[in-house]
């Protein structure tokens, strides 16, 4: 099976029902995308598929032919993704950091449709991503910081 991941064509052999998450992690060694629940409840496994936030733990790999997959390893190649990563670092957002890849991917999808999100937009778009450490105040601030930067040029 051919997949397009972070702009590269990748060959994988896994059964059709295998969730993208395990293809990324176990078959391709791309461990930036995290396992948290396996039921699309926590958002740790969020990737972009054609620019939209998708929970890779419930997305069968067979459904992804011809679609563009972006993971945390590749999102920094976009201006928006890089701005988010820089904001995350500048504000020391992470505690344990485990959920943050998924948070950044959801934030990237949010900024794609709403370059200047309100608090309500942020809460709505990010409510699918759990952070057990409770970094939510800094996540809100980092999204706004990144939006401020990308907003000037978009």
């Amino acid at each position, binding site marked *: 099976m051919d997949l397009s991941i972070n702009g590269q064509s990748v060959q994988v052999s896994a059964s059709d029902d295998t969730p993208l998450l395990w293809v990324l992690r176990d078959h391709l060694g791309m461990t930036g995308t995290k396992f948290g629940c396996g039921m699309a409840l926590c958002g740790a496994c969020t990737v972009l598929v054609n620019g939209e936030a998708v929970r890779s733990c419930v997305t069968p790999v067979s459904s992804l032919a011809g679609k563009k997959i972006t993971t945390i390893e590749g999102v920094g190649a976009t201006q928006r993704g890089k701005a988010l990563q820089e904001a995350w670092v500048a504000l020391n957002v992470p505690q344990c950091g485990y959920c943050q*890849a998924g948070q950044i991917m959801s934030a990237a999808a949010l900024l794609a449709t709403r370059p200047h999100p309100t608090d309500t937009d942020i809460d709505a778009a990010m409510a699918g991503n759990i952070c*057990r450490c409770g970094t939510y*105040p800094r996540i809100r601030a980092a999204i706004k910081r990144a939006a401020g930067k990308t907003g000037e040029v978009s």
Partner: protein
Amino acid sequence: MTELAQTVIEIEKTTRRVFLARLQALGGLVLAANLPDVVNASEPAKYGADGMPHGWKDNPLAFVAIGNDGTVTIVVHRSEMGQGVRTGMPLIVADELEADWTKVRVTQATAEEEKYGNQDTDGSRSTRHFFEPMRRCGAAARMMLEQAAAQTWGVPVGQVRALNHEVVHEASGRKLGYGALAQRAARLPVPPRAALRLKSPAQFRYIGKGETPLADGWDIATGKAQYGIDSRAEGMLFAVIARSPVLGGKIASVDSSQAAKIPGVIKVVPLQSVAQGAQFQPLAGVAVIASDTWIAIKARNALKIQWDDGPNGTYDSQSYRAEQQQAARKPGKVLRATGDFDGALAKASRKIAAEYYLPHIAHATMEPPAALARIDNNHCEVWAPTQAPQVTREDVAKHVGLAPENVTVHVTLLGGGFGRKSKPDFAIEAALLSREMGGKPVKVIWTREDDLHHDFFHTVSVEHLEAGLDQRGKVSAWLHRSVAPSIGSIFGPDPKHELPFEVGMGLVNLPYDIPNLRIENPEAAAHTRIGWFRSVSNIPHAFAVQSFVAELAAAAGRDHRDFLLELIGPARLIDPASQGDTWNHGESPQIYPVDTGRLRRVIETATREARWGRKMPPGSGLGLAAHYSFVSYTAAVVEVAVNRNGELKITRVDIAFDCGPQVNPDRVRSQLEGAVVMGLSLALTGEITFKQGRAQQDNFHMYQVMRIDAAPPEIHVHLLPSTDWSMPLGGVGEPGVPPIAPALCNAIFAATGRRIRQMPVKDQLAQTAKSENA
């Protein structure tokens, strides 16, 4: 002999001495000291890092390496789980070393306590215990570089000084970088401790500033950071395990024929059953080893297993609660008695009683337990997100039949710890399965369901309080009975009473000015694995005490803040032992007395910043709670709004915190922000229930944790300033949690008049509103 004493003796008989030392560090010390047969009572008590297994080390050769290019590598021996230890600990060394932070690399120690000192990352004590040793490491390395430069130039060492990654000789203007000096410095003897010149705080470059970027910030933001679950090795296999749903259960029969047919399944392995009180030993189970995680999960679903549940198969949290309530309404073991509670209550003008309930909770670290192990040539290597590296090493060694020297534990980043990952059962599982596969690397992954079903759960409590108010509305009598199964139950025969470290978490050590007081601990048996959860027994004790004080204030018609300050009484230093607290979070009662002045100050700060006493709109309210734990002082004010449908919004939280001097104030703030969110999360939705011995919550739809849309829009952290570096440091990771739930429920009371005595809040407000609106 009490059952508890018997437990300690059993532990001594059946485990090695180092394990006893670990239990002592948890609070068994004084208890054991009463039993001369167990340990020598004449041994002076050890506190702080001295009281921990393998104590502390400050050898710069173990912690610091300098390359010829000037790169300074600093070893971190404690585990990073979000508290910022991989930034905070090296920052201390780098500061004393006069190192340029941009040239510092951080590396993680393997498990080796003989070399690094204690590595148990728990009890909010990494910085508290290693601030001084790490300063000495840095200072010793700095002095060796200065000596090397002085020798190179042939000048007295007193004429040179280290400054920002160079040693300078001001008289001649000569300079040498650390890289150029590294080899010569490394050949010099380490200066003796007494000869070390530590910086004065005014010279601190990083300590106390909070401006150091996170060591792993960029790796986390770009997906490069490696957690235990991310560990990989050539030829690695993947395993999931179907574990006994009931503690102590055994496999009656297993049919793996369907599972074995799934392509990619490599082996199905039964794991031995264990009895209750088996420490961190894995549960009985059937492991599926496969070529990827998904196949292993699918095959596990295809297993047909009959379990023999054993005696815990009847554990039901609802009926257990009734048992606990019965116990709480009868006298129990007296832990502390002052004055005459019964007499004073009989004479009281008002008598008030309340009972509080706090269910089991699960840690639910975002990274579920996971570990990789391989065995090659009688050497086992483990990669694990462990809070207890040395325990992991010793336990893995024991289980696979190797000497601890033949086990290497690589400590990865932890995707959350909160106490769960102090228990290395998952690492032992990986090692056992690797052995089963002839030493091939096997990674064990717990699914979220596994994590919630088989946690070492936070205890379940009924807290019963009674008090009498005199004619002036002052508290004249106070009774507190705490009924909760003990963490001691995982270490051997169930003590059925809270251990010293549990009662010392806000139960006996009530720093209030009450003349007639009795604190009791009736029996409670454990029917599931009970473990540490961030702030541990402070959670139920603080919830009960801080809710009850608010109830008493309301009964007395007094302002809660004024009433609480009056109850605390004037600023004074209290010897914890005088309150029946023989543990004091493992710290010396001389160095760390309970300081009611500091407790008062955090209350005054939080209430001032929250503008306590302001007029609130209908349906809104402010709630206060304060608690002393981990030798730090915390007060929180929560602001809520409740609408007529009982929908609750938490609009603002102010938290004031005094932990003494702060090495990295930014991480102190982040720990408190996180503690607020976690505290609210537990209070609103945190509950694990049991039926037929089985945890009933499967995943995040049933065990809900706070999400961003419910998190307060405003969290204000107020750190009490302290620039006096001679003051002992307090704990940071845990003390933010305990006051949050009671402050929330006190706010709900202020807003609605409804008193919540049962955790979690869940839909209790909506139910009340429904019946009132009907």
